[in-house]
């Protein structure tokens, strides 16, 4: 893990919980969540070549309760395997915003940490945690299946102890992430997901959720239209 991973400084205002058993319930939920993780089946880069060995007979990820899942809405983990080109990064952000909370992002390979082999390339985004809150990095080019599995075990431990909460950071500091995305994709960048509304809904509306970048977003944003199905 590197130092740049943002740490949530101040807790957002949450409704006061009066149930004395809420704490116990939280721990139970964290335990249950840590033992059943669905990993989004999206091969974003060359690190994906070490995922089939990790998933299949020899290293067998399923013994940890981790399975690939094809739709983002049912997935818990977004594995970003390797370099992300600008075109892919747009899809990754769209996918991430579609996933239901709690969600976790793992950056595999050196390229997600600092650009790796392609630090000179004009086509890749260098640091993933500028655009998405990353929970865990697995460094290496490319990390062995053992390293992938040990990283996932670390994530399981973190979830179990309630320490893997970086997805909240995306809502609490949305302005920061949106600013970096706008810097890369241009001022017209928008996604169909209403992140600000979700932040209010989840009670994660922080002081840095809104800012100059979200103002820019609201000025260019087109109202969301229901998708038209032509059949």
């Amino acid at each position, binding site marked *: 893990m590197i130092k740049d991973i943002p740490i949530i400084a101040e807790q957002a205002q949450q409704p006061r919980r009066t149930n004395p058993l809420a704490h116990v319930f939280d721990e139970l939920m964290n335990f249950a969540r840590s033992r059943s993780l669905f990993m*989004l*089946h*999206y*091969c*974003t*880069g*060359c690190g*994906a*070549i*070490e995922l*089939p*060995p990790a998933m*299949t*007979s*020899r290293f067998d990820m399923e013994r940890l309760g981790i399975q*690939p899942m*094809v739709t*983002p809405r049912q997935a818990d983990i977004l594995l970003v395997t390797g*370099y992300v*080109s600008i*075109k*892919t990064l747009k*899809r990754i952000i769209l*996918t991430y915003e579609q996933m239901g909370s709690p969600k976790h992002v793992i950056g595999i390979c050196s390229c997600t940490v600092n650009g790796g*082999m*392609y630090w*000179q*390339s*004009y*086509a*890749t985004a260098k640091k993933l945690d500028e655009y998405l809150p990353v929970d865990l990095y697995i460094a290496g*080019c*490319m990390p*062995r299946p053992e390293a992938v599995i040990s990283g996932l075990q670390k994530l399981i431990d973190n979830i179990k102890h309630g320490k893997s909460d970086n997805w909240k950071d995306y809502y609490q500091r949305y302005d920061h992430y949106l600013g970096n995305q706008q810097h890369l994709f241009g001022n017209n960048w928008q996604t169909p997901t209403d992140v600000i509304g979700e932040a209010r809904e989840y009670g994660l509306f922080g002081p840095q959720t809104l800012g100059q970048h979200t103002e820019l977003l609201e000025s260019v944003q087109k109202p969301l239209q229901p998708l038209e*199905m*032509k*059949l």
Partner: protein
Amino acid sequence: MRPENYQAINHPPSHEYELNFGPNHPGIEGNYALKVKLQGDQVVEAHADGGYLHRGFEKLMEGRLWIQNIALVPRICVPDPVPMEMAYSLAVEELGGLEVPIRAQWIRVMQLELSRIAAHLFTFGGHAATTGMYTTMYWGVADRDLFLDLFEELTGGRVYHIYNIPGGVRRDIPDGYLDRVTSTLDYLESRLPDYDNLFFTNQVFVKRATGTGTMTQQQALEWGVTGPNLRATGLKLDVRRDDPYLVYDEIDFDIATEEAGDAWARTLVRRKELQQSIRIVRQVIERLPSIGGPIRCPIPNPLAWNVPAGEAYARIDSSKGEVAYYVVSTGGDKPYRVHVRGPSSMHAVQVLENLVTGGRLEDVAQIMFSLDACPPEVDR
């Protein structure tokens, strides 16, 4: 309803709709997308949508030293990286006038064929998964791992080896390595009947793959198809035989061909190539102990190596098709221009678009896997 009784009703044009097949789709190979226009479940039109994996390799290589590029080239094709570094090394050797020692050439042949076996096992797994047979995927990937172990012992890397440098190979084979290769090959050969029963003669696969994505020999030549996909249309064209590089002219092997040109034939050609590769590696194991000598020829200081000016074109046969490098040097310490001719940039764009059109939606993934396209190489 059986597929042969299925008659698509010709809907008016408004009944067509578009579907994004990829990039986040379990049926697509890697990070790649197809935009398909559908009528019912028949594909009317398909457009390949690449660029998700573009890293600008050819530009990056112009900014790095000749020897640094060796670490860069295997990343172009992830499942089968050895031919990439080999073709680049051959081109640089041609420019620099380097004479590769015989022992290094035999080691290179062994490495190429082991890489081909590993890549084919991986493809069978992916192809079987698109027809719903996941056991083959689990077996294929697990057996491929044994070959990755061999690579790890030889080169230090499981996937990216960076073992060939211009002038030879980086280090000699370890003690007892050839015995371990033999035992792994024996194991794979003993598994082949199981694979036949599970996948290649399985009626689920045979019925779905026969007649799917058929191309004629004429079409294949027009579209620039190479490698196993071309040999599946009945043409005996193999760079290893027609334009021998390394020591392939001293090796006895057959060129696997099939006549049908459909997904079934393409898979069967790969199945036959697996046996031929085993045969080639066995010949290398037989010959290698009797060949002594150095494993690389002396090269100038690699950090200040000015390769003589000129142009070179080296081509070799990989598991995906013909890989070629066109390298131009102006006498500097970095390449002036490197062009990569990858097989997948034809297979996954024009060939895939043409083969998918007129077929059905559930066959799109199967056709893509039967062509064995490699998206990182398409985008580069």
